[in-house]
């Protein structure tokens, strides 16, 4: 017996000792999903973008609030309304020691369209670019197809690769597969690639020849942990130093722990409900004699007013959301000042509006929602359904796994559906253009407008704004467009998700509007 016990003790001690403390300069981050590739031009996807922003750098970048600031380009000016001249920063070298030149920029922007098998090509960000040329070693001229004020916002997403390192036999130079192995994965960023085991750790180490301020970390380990509760547990146990997206249920425990804390950031992604305003015989509606009540503005307003956004933000989202009165966050360029804060919930007024519209007895509707795609999505949909049911609109919830939800949405099987939109331009124009501009496949307008809202006045304002180079004039046009759509209840915003990160208590991170986790911005306090 005593032998067994001491034996047990010895082996426990051995286990404890084997748990070697991670060196002080390591940063372990539990991410919510892993990149699909390390090729910075393969797939437009957040996990990919944040990794490439640690290894590579674009000409310009966004600060935590989304404002544009210089990075590899120190300054830029317009040579004509369609010609932008970017002046590269002096003394920048790639991690292999070669200097950055205008040729690298031309090579990188040129490669974008050549990457094969891409699930979402980065041509998304070069749509407006007609040509790129090197005027000299440190000046790049980018020509746009028309006057295009958002060029710098697009450039944020286009990291610069080393021409020397990333050239190869394939048309695109180094292939995606080679880059995934780290071959040719040479950037000017604060970290360099060490290793990547798919499904497990991606390891980076500090770029010793980095031109800017050196990061606080010698080594960064990004570990995909898709289950949010697992991330919380790992942070609490000290296995990781930082986690993405704290789930609603663990907020209390992390805040109550002396060794961990939460930072949360500016409101970002908007959650909204889109309404079918085209068809008379809309599939999810019954009890209306074949009419579509959603075409009536009063009915849409009633549905808007029935929703208690404060209640959803505090009870369902656990405080990790801000009520939304517009599709754009209050600090976003072009959001209408009148709609920064939503009108308060008013079920009585909502019932009265239904009465006025001739639907005093209500009707039945099915609200479609994805399940597990956005934070607490199906729970938010259920709560909205409860609130609508209370004013007499009997609401059923059809919450389906993401692929089925998207299929139904694309086949327009929903009369009303809950969805979300992340804006990465910092301007409300792109959101309104995708969600509420009249659907036009060839012009690429209203590409996400499955409710088929259509308002020529709104279309005219958006088209005018997209060509207006003057910031003040463009802001005014966008604010007008936003106010027009919101007072027409074209779509029903619910809330903005507030991104959050769990951190070891002695670390600092400035929460970002683009929700990226950038290891170079994680610092130690004191």
């Amino acid at each position, binding site marked *: 017996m005593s032998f067994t016990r001491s034996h047990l003790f010895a082996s426990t001690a051995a286990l404890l000792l084997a748990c070697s403390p991670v060196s002080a300069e390591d940063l372990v981050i*539990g991410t919510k999903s892993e990149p699909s590739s390390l090729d910075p031009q393969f797939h437009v996807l957040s996990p990919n973008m944040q990794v490439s922003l640690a290894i590579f750098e674009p000409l310009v970048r966004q600060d935590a609030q989304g404002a544009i600031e210089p990075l590899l380009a120190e300054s830029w000016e317009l040579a004509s309304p369609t010609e932008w001249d970017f002046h590269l920063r002096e003394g920048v070298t790639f991690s292999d020691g070669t200097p950055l030149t205008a040729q690298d920029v031309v090579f990188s922007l040129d490669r974008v369209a050549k990457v094969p*098998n891409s699930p979402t090509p980065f041509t998304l960000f070069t749509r407006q670019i007609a040509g790129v040329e090197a005027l000299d070693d440190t000046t790049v001229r980018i020509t746009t197809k028309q006057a295009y004020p958002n060029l710098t916002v697009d450039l944020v997403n286009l990291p610069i690769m080393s021409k020397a390192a990333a050239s190869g036999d394939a048309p695109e130079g180094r292939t995606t*597969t080679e880059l995934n192995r780290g071959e040719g994965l040479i950037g000017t960023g604060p970290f360099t690639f060490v290793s990547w*085991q798919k*499904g497990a750790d991606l390891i980076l180490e500090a770029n010793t020849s980095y031109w800017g301020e050196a990061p606080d970390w010698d080594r960064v380990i990004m570990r995909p942990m898709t289950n949010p509760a*697992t991330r919380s547990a790992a942070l609490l*146990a000290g296995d990781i130093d930082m986690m993405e997206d704290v789930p609603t249920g663990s907020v209390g425990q992390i805040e109550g722990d002396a060794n961990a804390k939460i930072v949360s950031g500016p409101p970002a992604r908007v959650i909204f409900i889109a309404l079918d305003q085209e068809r008379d015989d809309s599939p999810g509606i019954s009890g209306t004699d074949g009419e579509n009540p959603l075409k009536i503005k009063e009915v849409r307003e009633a549905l808007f007013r029935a929703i208690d956004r404060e209640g959803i933000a505090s009870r369902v989202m656990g405080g990790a959301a801000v009520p939304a009165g517009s599709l754009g966050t209050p600090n976003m360029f072009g959001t209408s000042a009148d709609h920064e804060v939503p009108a308060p919930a008013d079920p009585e007024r909502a019932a009265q509006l239904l009465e006025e519209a001739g639907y005093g007895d209500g009707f039945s509707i099915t609200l479609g929602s994805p399940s597990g795609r956005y934070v607490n999505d199906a729970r938010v949909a259920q709560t909205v359904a409860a609130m609508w049911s209370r004013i007499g609109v009997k609401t059923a919830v059809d919450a389906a796994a993401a692929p089925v939800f998207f299929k139904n949405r694309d086949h327009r099987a929903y009369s009303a559906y809950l969805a979300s939109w992340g804006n990465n331009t910092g301007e409300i124009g792109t959101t309104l253009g995708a969600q509420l501009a009249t659907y036009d*496949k060839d012009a690429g307008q209203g590409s996400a407008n499955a409710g088929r809202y259509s308002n020529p006045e709104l279309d005219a304002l958006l088209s005018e704004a997209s060509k207006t180079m003057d910031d003040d004039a463009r802001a005014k046009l966008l604010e007008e467009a936003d106010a027009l759509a919101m007072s027409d209840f074209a779509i029903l915003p619910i809330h903005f998700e507030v991104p959050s990160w769990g951190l070891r208590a002695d670390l600092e991170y400035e929460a970002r509007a683009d929700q990226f986790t950038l290891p170079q911005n994680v610092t130690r306090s004191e």
Partner: protein
Amino acid sequence: MSAFVINRLLQAFFVLLVMSVLVFVGIYLVGDPISMLVSPEATDLERDAVRESFGLDRPIFVQYITFLGSALQGDFGRSFLTGEPALQLILERMPATVELVGFAMFFSVVIGVPLGIIAGLRPEATFSKVIMTGSIFGFSLPTFWVGMVLIMLFAVQLGILPTSGRGETVQVGPIELSILTLDGLRHLILPALTLGLTKASLIIRVTRAATREIQAMDYIKFARAKGLSSSRILRVHLLKNVLIPIITVAGLEFGQALAFAVVTETVFSWPGMGKLLIDSILTLDRPVVVAYVLIMVLFLVLLNLVIDLLYMVIDPSSREKVRD
């Protein structure tokens, strides 16, 4: 015997064909991979371009024929999501899962068989009743629940085991193994326990049932009547005969766990292939799902073959019974 094996492998080929058709049609019915893969910011024209580049704009049977042509040459296509060869993605992840499931099954057999035999030999004893009632808890709670409770207890509260991940690995040939390092073993304990608990309960129950069955058989009674010692009866007759149902169930469970250890892998962030499968299904990454399922079919057919061959070894008189 060899005719039996060849026959089985021929059958396996047809199973593979049927399977690939089913998965193709299945994914096609679920939804459009493009809506899962392409950034919402892309316009419909950009979507169409991606659809075309993946060949998804062609009729489904044309897509299938194309796939079949390349598959016969060993090319299962590239993952829509990562652009890497589907087969390679799966093989990269396989060692982690095999390690986890093997460890869990080993644990469940080592625990389950002795307890099951005890409970079967003395069904009325209190100890047996405790075993049987206790085993019920092993499968009445969802795996994700058990996993999280273990993490909270051993990793967060007691801090003696890591919460998740695979830990340090050792390269053995082309394969990364964590079972050979102490750190890797520590990472393996909780997920294997979670996965093995349900399996152990099942093995206990199957073993007990089989033991009781066989005890009542004529030859055991005959052996007892002949005055053979209990331990010899246990060793020679009983163990040999309870092995058939145990091998059947353990084999099936091993195959199932290997193919679909999804929940455990998710809860413990275990970089195995079960996780890859569910992610691929939910993003409708068809080449990966097809390749995965085909590999699993092949594996399960082989596993069943091995099980049937084992029957023959254990009980030579069953040789003609299992012949297909």
